[in-house]
């Protein structure tokens, strides 16, 4: 659906996107992950046809976004950063206006607007003025706008930013439901969001794509740095000998918790999951186990790892 090859975008004196290439298949939900200034928004702006690339080619559905701009824009639903809207218009009126300028007929636009308003939970606010809506509703209006002409490709630049947890959940569920029928490209800097919604992640930093993989694979690649936290009530020396004898444990750290419990922070060997092993051992020895968790990697950890692969492998 999307083929980006050797895309470079330079602003006066600054390279925002530096020779990136990637492809997105039809029906995929792909997350562009990266900190601010990584080049996510610029990539999306080039994809949406708002700005031309300095060099390289971008194709959407086999069409060049620059030369067949009109045909490409018909196929894309784009929600830019900060979700700009016309504040003086009413929700329904705005969506109808957008549907019409995206080439839908009068009858068709009525039907589509009703559909997307239901889909995005806007049915109750159709007559409200956009400027007076809460941020969550505005965000949903932006989403509804991106969906209104039923595009093949949906590009959403930070769709959940500034929403409360409840709203984030509903937006995520909505985006997830779009997969399969539509191709979705979203940008974010929140890792759990990507894990929940996306089939694939592209990590961008400093204008380059550093990694492209499924969230599970990325997690697995990070497993070497993962920690397992276990709270077990047992004699300290027995715990020590047990962890030392386990080949899957690379290193461990014990600290006394409340009562008889010890808090054990375990670093497993790459690729192994310690949790079932710990549980089995605790059951065999009849120790009481009250917590067993895997500390998840944050985006920062992954950046660290992805941005410094040479030092990591050199160790």
């Amino acid at each position, binding site marked *: 659906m999307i083929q980006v090859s050797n895309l470079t975008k330079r602003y006066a004196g600054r390279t925002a996107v530096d020779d990136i290439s990637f492809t997105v298949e039809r029906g995929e939900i792909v997350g562009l992950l990266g900190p601010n200034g990584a080049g996510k928004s610029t990539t999306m702006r080039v994809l*949406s046809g708002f700005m*031309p690339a300095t060099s390289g080619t971008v194709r959407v559905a086999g069409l060049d976004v620059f030369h067949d701009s009109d045909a490409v824009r018909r196929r894309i639903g784009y929600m*830019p950063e900060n979700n700009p809207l016309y504040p003086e218009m009413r929700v329904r009126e705005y969506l109808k206006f957008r549907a*019409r*300028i995206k*080439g839908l007929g009068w009858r068709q636009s009525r039907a589509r607007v009703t559909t997307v308003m239901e889909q995005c939970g806007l049915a109750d606010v159709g007559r409200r003025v956009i400027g007076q809506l809460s941020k969550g509703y505005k965000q949903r209006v932006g989403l509804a706008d991106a969906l209104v002409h039923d595009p093949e490709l949906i590009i959403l630049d930070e769709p959940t930013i500034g929403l409360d947890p409840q709203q984030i959940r509903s937006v995520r569920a909505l985006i997830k439901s779009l997969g399969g029928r539509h191709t979705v490209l979203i940008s974010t800097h929140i890792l759990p969001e990507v894990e929940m919604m996306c089939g694939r992640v592209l990590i961008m930093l400093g204008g380059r794509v550093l990694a492209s993989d499924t969230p599970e694979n990325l997690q697995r690649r990070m497993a070497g740095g993962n920690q397992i936290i276990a709270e077990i009530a047992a004699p300290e020396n027995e715990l020590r000998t047990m962890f030392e004898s386990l080949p899957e444990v690379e290193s461990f750290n014990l600290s006394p918790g409340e009562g008889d419990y010890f808090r054990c922070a375990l670093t497993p060997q790459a690729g192994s999951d310690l949790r079932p092993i710990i549980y089995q051992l605790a059951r065999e020895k009849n120790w009481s186990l009250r917590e067993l968790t895997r500390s998840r990697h944050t985006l920062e950890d992954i950046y660290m790892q992805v941005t410094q692969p040479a030092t990591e492998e050199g160790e």
Partner: protein
Amino acid sequence: MSIFCILLRRELGAYFLNLTGYVIIAAVALLTGLSFVVLLQNLGSGPSPMPVTEMFYRTYFFWLIVLLVSPVITMRLYALEKASGTFETLTTTPVGDVQIVASKFVAAQIFYLFAWLPLVACLLIVRHFTQQNAGLDAGTAGGMALGIGLTGSLFLSLGCFASSLSRSQVAAAMISFGLGVSLFSLGFLAAALPATSEWQNQALAYFGLFEQMHDFARGVVDTRTVVFYVSATFFFLFLTLRVVESRRWK
């Protein structure tokens, strides 16, 4: 065509659904009212050989409206959309740049003419109370309306161009005000220059907006003037279109 109408409706909505639009209308009504007061004083002081429309145009408030209000009307057209980001959502739809430029200009022009409506009331009042048809006939009123429309379109196209250059509405208003005043003063340059060469004066005479409006107010419509206004309007709209398109090759 239908896309143009949809965009035009939205642009007109932006004027009439906003407080700013009504502030502009109120300001124009105030200025028109002031020139009406001056007009009544002139009429009261003695008989006048001029048509009422010409007396109107002779008050300074008339030019104040043209020079001051058109930058204010046009400043938001592109600058606000660029600043708020809606320009991005607008240009990533399959709408052509020509349609965007045309709809914004036509909406500004319609709003501008709408703001002038109090003038019609003023003229009708004068006519009603003086009970003289000679001071105000269809010819002078039509010429005046045409003149207002044409000068308006020139200054509004200038304003569109200025607004497309900037992200800041204030900067856009100042640029178009500066350009507008320069253009307006160009006409006076012809009188100030010594008549060294005929062609210079002739060329400058085309920019004599003050004199041309004088003709319109007397009901004299010169084709050359009309052609000048229309072509200058298209020239500035063409420049605006180029600026809007420029994002594609920047």
